[in-house]
């Protein structure tokens, strides 16, 4: 396992992933927003590969273009240059191969928890029997059985985000994109959700691309942390986290008791802080 710091611009990781084709490849992607009055250079040309089963987190100062990168990766925004590949082929428009969990949950308010979770299956015309079965599976996995007929507004923030995660997982995406999914939650709920996502990832070996502004969260969850510079965003550094890191099985509070964890956290936080103070 590669535990050393990987330099910017060296994204290929065939050696560690035992897989020649990355699950997702962000290739030469940049973004410039053009309005009538001005041009905003939001994202510098970026290359990033995410291996099958890998959990990659992105940290950076707010407004650094990490959300732009996420929107482009999801196919919800067009890049100004470059392309997104999934399993080596152009990813095309947004769709269930790349499902997204948003910061503000984005649940459909007029549909129940079960309908929200089953949304992706019903638009794909999955049979009623299979749909019911898979919704039930997700409800159990996320501890949502008793809320199956509730409307989103009747749930707490943590429960709403569980629904959103279930809705994104049920379509069996090639890659799960998460855009600051826990930023809107209170601290205790966030800790619980972080641990659940970590456990889910270990269990399902899913590929996850995760944006956060929390350095602890980034280190705790990731196989690899990507640090972005301030706007126009570029990848400043990529740091691999040991696969057998001891904190992976506990929650984030436990993680902070490990010296290695705190060293990584400090190293990454220093990188992020340079971007905040050097305006």
């Amino acid at each position: 396992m590669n535990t050393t710091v990987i330099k910017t611009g060296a994204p290929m990781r065939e050696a560690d992933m035992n897989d020649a084709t990355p699950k997702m490849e962000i290739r030469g992607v940049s973004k410039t927003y053009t309005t009538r009055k001005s041009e905003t250079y939001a994202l510098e040309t970026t290359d990033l590969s995410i291996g099958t089963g890998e959990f990659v987190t992105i940290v950076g100062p707010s407004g650094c273009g990490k959300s732009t990168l996420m929107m482009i990766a999801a196919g919800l925004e067009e890049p100004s240059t470059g392309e997104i590949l999934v399993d080596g082929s152009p990813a095309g428009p947004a769709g269930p191969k790349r499902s997204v969990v948003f910061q503000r949950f984005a649940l459909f308010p007029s549909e129940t928890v079960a309908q929200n979770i089953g949304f992706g299956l019903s638009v794909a015309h999955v049979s009623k029997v299979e749909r019911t079965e898979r919704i039930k599976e997700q409800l159990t996995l996320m501890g949502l059985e008793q809320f199956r007929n509730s409307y989103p507004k009747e749930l707490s923030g943590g429960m709403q985000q569980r629904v959103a995660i279930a809705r994104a997982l049920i379509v069996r995406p090639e890659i799960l994109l998460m855009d600051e999914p826990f930023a809107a939650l209170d601290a205790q709920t966030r800790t619980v959700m972080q641990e659940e996502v970590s456990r889910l990832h270990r269990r399902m070996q899913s590929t996850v691309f995760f944006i956060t502004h929390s350095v602890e969260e980034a280190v705790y969850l990731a196989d690899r942390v990507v640090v972005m510079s301030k706007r126009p965003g570029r990848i400043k550094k990529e740091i691999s986290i040991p696969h057998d890191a001891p904190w992976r099985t506990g929650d984030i509070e436990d993680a902070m008791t490990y010296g290695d964890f705190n060293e990584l956290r400090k190293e990454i936080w220093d990188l992020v802080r340079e971007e905040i103070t050097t305006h």
Partner: protein
Amino acid sequence: MTQIKSASSTRNRSVRVASQPFVYGAVTLLCVLAAWFLATDVLHLVGSSFLPSPVTVIATLFGLTVQPFAGATLMGHLGLSLARWALGVGAGILLGVLLGIVLAWLPPVRAAVTPIFEVLRYIPPFAWVPIAVLWLGASMSAQALVVFIAAFPPCVINTQLGVSTVDPILTNAARTLGAPPMTILRRVVVPVAAPSIFTGARIAVSNGWMALVGAELIVGKEGLGFLIAQGQFNGDVAMIFVGIIVIGIVGTLIDFLIARAEVWTLPWKTDSK
């Protein structure tokens, strides 16, 4: 436990709060009736050709329900009025909601249509009565056209508002789950915009009702507005009052029904009210 307790006590209180205004309202209504009765039948403060007594009005009302006037009983006139109204309002809501969605989703169409629409909506519906009669004759469709003109703009405006304020994060979420545009419209956009669409429909319903009676006053051979016009023509003040009262009661009923329909169709919204 405490939560359950507080929830049930809130419900009890809300029942009491809801019933109190109803009682107040009923008392006020009875007072007005009593004052009316005193001023006419008891004290004879005003002449019956000026303000008929409530007894006369009620007698006229019941008389009209059995005795046809100008070819139809009161129910017949009411039915015709309702049919014209339903035709105009139905078309207004249907086309208004469709145009509202199109305007919210297609900026070029919005840019093209908005100027004409803005000019048209400041023309009072009654100004169209002569044109409606010229084009369609003094028929049901002429009256319905006037109703349509009154009902259409609030539907367009409120639907457009509701659809354009749907959070893009919801449509994005639907897209990433593989939903095609029509599914997004049906399952995400329209339900989320529904309260605003209902507001438009409710305004359309009452605007349409008022426009209808106005149009019937000016032109037509039957309907509630026609009854009032005939009352004026024949010096039958009681009939005028029958028309006015029935219009008021039916209008209130329609508004009540559409408010219930909103609660019934949007169960996920109702507990916030």
